[in-house]
């Protein structure tokens, strides 16, 4: 039996011994971290990559497959060359390959290049659609039209090629009223003007003859009125896919 007088002296609770009763409350966070954010829908995303090292594009994702084109690091305008990344595959040796759209004739050619020849991926949410019959172009963002403008396109003798292409670069501050204030370089090439300087690439540009837009007036390029071109210049990033139909 334990007598009251034999009880050991009362011990402070462990928390009290550590001074817990005098600890301050944690400060309130200055901002809240919200719930985890799921990845947004990628239905209208397109991926591109820069060409890091010059390489041969091949018909299949293997080193000895038939060459279908050559990719250099720079464009004729001395900008970084880039290509849309359409698909990926791994060969028997475990090497990663990427199927890309090529800026070569015939238009709409695609080929496989080693992943290591490309740089990091970029993403765009835009698409530029040119309707040759309606003489109209539409810029889509996330699948929705954000700009619709009349265009000048190629004559029957030098037609604007139909197919899938992409924006390669953006040219500004040059001195050529013929091309207006701004021009986009594309991967599309004229099938008829093959001896044109720099390879006969089709551009999207302004004009010093707005009276000819809309119309079938160019050597294949897509001409916009200068006001429309300025708007497009700030809305369409490099890497944007182009559909000409």
């Amino acid at each position, binding site marked *: 039996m334990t007598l009251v007088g034999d009880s050991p002296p009362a011990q402070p609770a462990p928390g009290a011994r550590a001074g817990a009763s005098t600890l301050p409350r944690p400060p309130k966070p200055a901002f809240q971290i919200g719930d985890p*954010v799921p990845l947004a829908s990628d239905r209208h995303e397109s*991926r591109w990559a820069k060409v890091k090292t010059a390489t041969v594009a091949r018909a299949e994702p293997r080193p000895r497959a038939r060459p279908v084109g050559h990719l250099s690091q720079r464009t004729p305008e001395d900008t970084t060359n880039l290509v849309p990344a359409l698909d990926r595959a791994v060969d028997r040796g475990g090497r990663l390959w990427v199927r890309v759209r090529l800026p070569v004739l015939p238009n709409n050619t695609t080929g496989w290049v080693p992943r290591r020849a490309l740089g990091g991926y970029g993403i765009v949410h835009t698409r530029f659609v040119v309707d040759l019959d309606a003489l109209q172009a539409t810029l889509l963002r996330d699948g929705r039209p954000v700009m619709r403008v009349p265009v000048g396109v190629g004559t029957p003798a030098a037609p604007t090629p139909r197919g899938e292409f992409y924006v390669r670069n953006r040219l500004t501050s040059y001195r050529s009223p013929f091309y207006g204030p701004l021009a986009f370089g594309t991967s599309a090439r004229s099938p008829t003007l093959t001896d044109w300087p720099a390879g006969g690439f089709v*551009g999207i540009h302004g004009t010093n003859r707005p009276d000819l837009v809309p119309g079938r007036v160019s050597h294949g390029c897509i001409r916009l009125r200068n006001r429309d071109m300025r708007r497009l210049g700030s809305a369409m990033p490099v890497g944007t896919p182009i559909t000409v139909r």
Partner: protein
Amino acid sequence: MSDLTLTTLDRDGALLEPLAGLHGSTRAEFLSKAALGGATLLAAFAAPPDADAQSAKRDVAILNFALALEYLQDAFYSEVERLGGFSGELGRQARVVGAHERAHVEALRKVLGGRAISRGRYDFRGATEKPEAFTRTAVAFEDLAVAAYKGQAPYISDSGLLVAALGIHTVEARHAAWIRRLAGSSPAPNAFDEPRTGKSVLTLVARTNFTMKTGSRRSPRFTG
């Protein structure tokens, strides 16, 4: 950082800009100083040297540095998820951690408002497409994030901001433990985390060509 360095990843200097900002110099000046020796870069992650800088301004700089790291991680895990190359536990880790990193980005951008730095472009050199490279890089990124938050936290003057930053810091530490376990490494190898001394960070100055040239002033030679 396995076969990746911050220099090769940070094509736009998105990490260098805020790091230089912490030190009150331009990116070029910072790189010039850093090129003199790796110790400068270690110190950069450890403490801003200008102790007299206005505290609020410094808090913004620190939060922007954190945002730069979160952008990097967001881009990394989001690219993995978009490419969809990983299945199983690795794919799940990338999805879950990516959603956390995007939440961190959202929160930091919101608190910084117009002072938030812009998002950079990164070259992950295939690490988002190959499981082994992904695992190595994710371990490096998470360890880097933990070290970066820890290095800057003592210099945050606003206790409310500090509490929020520590809330992210501990989550980054959980991410690090998770990916370390998947990599077959010990989630917590030491009883005490030393300041980061990874050589990968020191190779920051190895190359300077981060950007892509997408614009030109050359006269067009298109078909017209």
